[in-house]
């Protein structure tokens, strides 16, 4: 089975108000030391985890802002991946782009290095919402970024959108989707904003100046997303993800199928050989450890079968088609009914879950209540 490779680029021009991923202000010197540490991590991992046997089917450069790096630096990362890991012939390579950091030459260089998919962080159409989120770019730059990608030869373009932004109306959201659809996306991720503790936005909400979006309105926006995008030929394939048939994000499917992935860079998470581990969060510590020749892992644990089964179920149920009980049985040697029979019955009874012969999936009612379903398997 193909393995996924995630690489975290922990730099941004400016961090967004809602973001709680690990990211530092871009600094050329720090970026250079980070990239050399990253190569050391690749070398260590390819030895440690039997790079030869594992075939990587996808690479995903996320962040942070991967495009805060130069085109040459991004291309360099991809080249090193090829040197250290064996990649599948049809490997999907995605780079996240922030429209404020994209130009035609950079995208051209990136495309030529073998990257074949971009995910453009758009979030919203309205300038007041973009500013409220602390985004560094304008809508004009979004359009220019999409053009740059297209002229560089990218066909597989995904757009990241956010709904449920404080102050966002239903019409704002409709318009955002309409404008994005005009750019012929292959894939759209539409996330409902979650205000994470510790972020500037969270402080604004708790201290008063910002009022969070009403829960009922969020739900309305969610269903309006599903209606509009499926009406335009997109398949709603995961709670927050939509794709034209055949253009689903292969890398993300690995997470939802609870398959193996290796994460590189600070705070990156991995799930390999039944072991879950994650790297240290601090980029300085990350660099220091690698300079000493150590893996920058901060925590690692072997998952119990019970945990693996629970995760397989709750991750799989994020997919609209749900999970295949046959695959579950094959993987764990027990049927899903043997393990979770009583809970499945209860959830089916509550009309949150649909249990067919070959599929176990959330109902329409269950989708927005997914956590209530998942918690039953914990």
């Amino acid at each position, binding site marked *: 089975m193909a393995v996924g490779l995630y690489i975290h680029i922990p730099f941004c021009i400016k961090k967004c108000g809602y973001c709680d991923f690990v990211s530092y202000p871009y600094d050329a010197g720090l970026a250079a030391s980070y990239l050399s540490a990253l190569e050391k991590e690749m070398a260590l991992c390819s030895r440690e985890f039997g790079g030869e046997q594992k075939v990587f089917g996808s690479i995903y450069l996320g962040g942070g802002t991967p495009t805060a790096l130069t085109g040459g630096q991004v291309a360099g990362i991809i080249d090193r991946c090829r040197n250290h890991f064996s990649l599948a012939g049809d490997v999907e390579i995605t780079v996240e782009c922030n429209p404020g950091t994209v130009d035609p030459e950079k995208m051209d260089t990136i495309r030529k290095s073998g990257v074949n998919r971009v995910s453009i962080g758009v979030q919203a159409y309205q300038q007041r919402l973009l500013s409220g989120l602390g985004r560094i770019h304008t809508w004009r730059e979004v359009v220019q970024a999409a053009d740059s990608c297209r002229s560089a030869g990218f066909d597989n373009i995904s757009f990241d959108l956010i709904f449920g932004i404080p102050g966002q109306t239903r019409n704002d959201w409709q318009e955002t989707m309409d404008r994005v659809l005009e750019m012929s996306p292959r894939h759209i991720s539409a996330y409902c904003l979650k205000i994470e503790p510790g972020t500037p936005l969270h402080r604004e909400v708790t201290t008063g100046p910002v009022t969070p979006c009403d829960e009922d309105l969020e*739900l309305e926006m969610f269903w309006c997303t599903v209606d509009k995008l499926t009406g335009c030929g997109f398949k709603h394939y995961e709670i927050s993800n939509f794709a034209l048939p055949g253009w689903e994000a292969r890398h*993300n499917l690995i997470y939802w199928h609870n398959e193996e992935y290796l994460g590189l860079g600070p705070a*990156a998470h991995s799930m390999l050989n039944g072991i879950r581990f994650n790297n240290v969060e601090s980029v300085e510590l990350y660099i220091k450890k690698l300079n000493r020749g150590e893996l920058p892992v901060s925590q690692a644990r072997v998952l119990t079968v019970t945990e693996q089964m629970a995760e397989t179920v709750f991750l799989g149920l994020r997919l609209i088609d749900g999970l295949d009980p046959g695959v579950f049985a094959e993987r764990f040697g027990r049927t899903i009914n043997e393990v979770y029979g009583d809970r499945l019955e209860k959830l089916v009874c509550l009309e949150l879950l649909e249990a067919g012969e070959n599929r176990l999936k959330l109902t329409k009612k269950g989708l927005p209540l997914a*956590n209530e379903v998942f918690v039953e398997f914990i």
Partner: protein
Amino acid sequence: MTETSHKKTRHSKTRNFCIIAHIDHGKSTLADRLLEYTGALTEREMSDQVLDQMDLERERGITIKAQAVRLMYKADDGEIYTLNLIDTPGHVDFTYEVSRSLAACEGAVLVVDAAQGIEAQTLANVYLALEHNLEIIPVINKVDLPGAEPGRVKGEIEDVIGLDCGDAVLASAKEGKGIKEVLEQIVTKIPPPVGNEDEPLKALVFDSHYDSYKGVIAYIRVFEGSVRPGMRIRMMATGKDFEVNEVGIFRPALTGIGELGVGDVGFIAASIKNVKDIRVGDTVTGAQKPTDKPLPGYRKITPMVFSGLYPVDGADYDDLRDALGKLKLNDASLMFDPETSVALGFGFRLGFLGLLHMEIIQERLEREYGLDLITTAPSVVFRITRTDGEMIEIDNPTNMPPAQNIEHMEEPFVKATVMVPNHYVGAVMELAQEKRGIYLNMEYLSESRVMLSYEMPLIEIIYDFFDQLKSRTKGYASLDYEFSGYRESDLVKLDIMVSAEVVDALSCIVHRDKAYQKGRQLTEKLKDIIPRHMFEVPIQATIGNKIIARETVKAMRKNVLAKCYGGDITRKRKLLEKQKEGKKRMKQVGNVEIPQEAFMAVLKME
């Protein structure tokens, strides 16, 4: 000196006293200063409020169990006196224990706050002390505080209690002022104990505690005869005999001595395994040569307030039973019996002396034994005469027979005394009326302070009368009450249905005239407490088959995580675990999860 005359001198130099005070009037601080002054403890050994030993007592600033300490004081007359201070519980729930502690003394120090004046509880305890013929030494405390009016307070004590305050000590226990005067007055005013060393042993048990090595340690005051290790003793109320292993005094640490004689306050240990065998108020006598008459005043304590206690997690049932057993070792007034609830499963019905006692037990179970508990709303004992003529008593609303089988019902009433500044009289009267109080009397204690008496249903007192009283009088009112008897009442059982099913643990018995109001308040309150579920949860209040109020908890519509954070499954898992933890603290009744506090909602209304 002959042995007899030595003994005589000994008890002529003994003074047994207690301190009577309202909460916050400075009893514990004064006790601490007395200990300090007489050197019972060095300053380094003192943490504040030595006598209140339980954490809970310190936090709440109240005494739950009596404690005793022996002080040695060299008086101005050059003689050394033995002073036994018996600390008394300071709450209406423990009136009986207070009366037993008082019975062990010849005198009492009455501490009154120089700004606040006499409070209801103080007065009740002073009357108890006077009944026991105690010499009372008035001490006006906190005289250094702004707002202190020692003159007015002296006048109040003289008018209300009829106690001469010419010699009243003006003290500030906090500042250490007036401590010596208090000690001098104890020596000069309180009479020494009288009694005959040669008579058969007669000693009063005023408290006990359980020690895992020595068994029950009984706190006693010897009135006649003496007790020493090796002696066989008999508990007159329970008729049980034991052999004494150890006798001793409180320094305040338990210190063994050879013998306890007339007038002595101390402890005995006699390998007594069960606290039930040695009850507060019982008389200890010699098994060989018993006295023919026990000391007066013993009664078996009967609980007044009942409530159900259930583990949130049914698997903790055995732990709860063990914890209750352990608490009972130290608290003979705690009663419990197994009980089952349709909604809550297996638990216990507990009987308490009052609401404070109930809160203390709950808190100790949760804190000291780490149990997660659900407590049902407290109830009293109702008397029901059935149509077939039989009279039954119920302490759990669930056991109330159907209305058609009830001829009439009676409920316990108390005589409640409220003391309050005169401009709150209207507010107190209004509240008493709302709580079905029957007006008895109003008396001016001074120009500005009034004492109101009402006859009132006990259930109203234990619901929220005290909180309401405090809030409507800005904390100025004080309350005391005593059981006065049963009265006929028009009572109905109010049931609560959650998702169309009666939740037995939420039922309560209320007066018919209040049923609609209570039903409405309770459903509204529950609507806020019960979290949203994936379906609508109707909450209805019913009497018999009639629905009198209804609220609905709207269905939860959204609970989903948008993103999976680049493979950070741990984070997602933690969120789900947190959500699950929250659910665990709730009780699943049918398919609805009801939080713990819902079962006490009936107490916290208005």
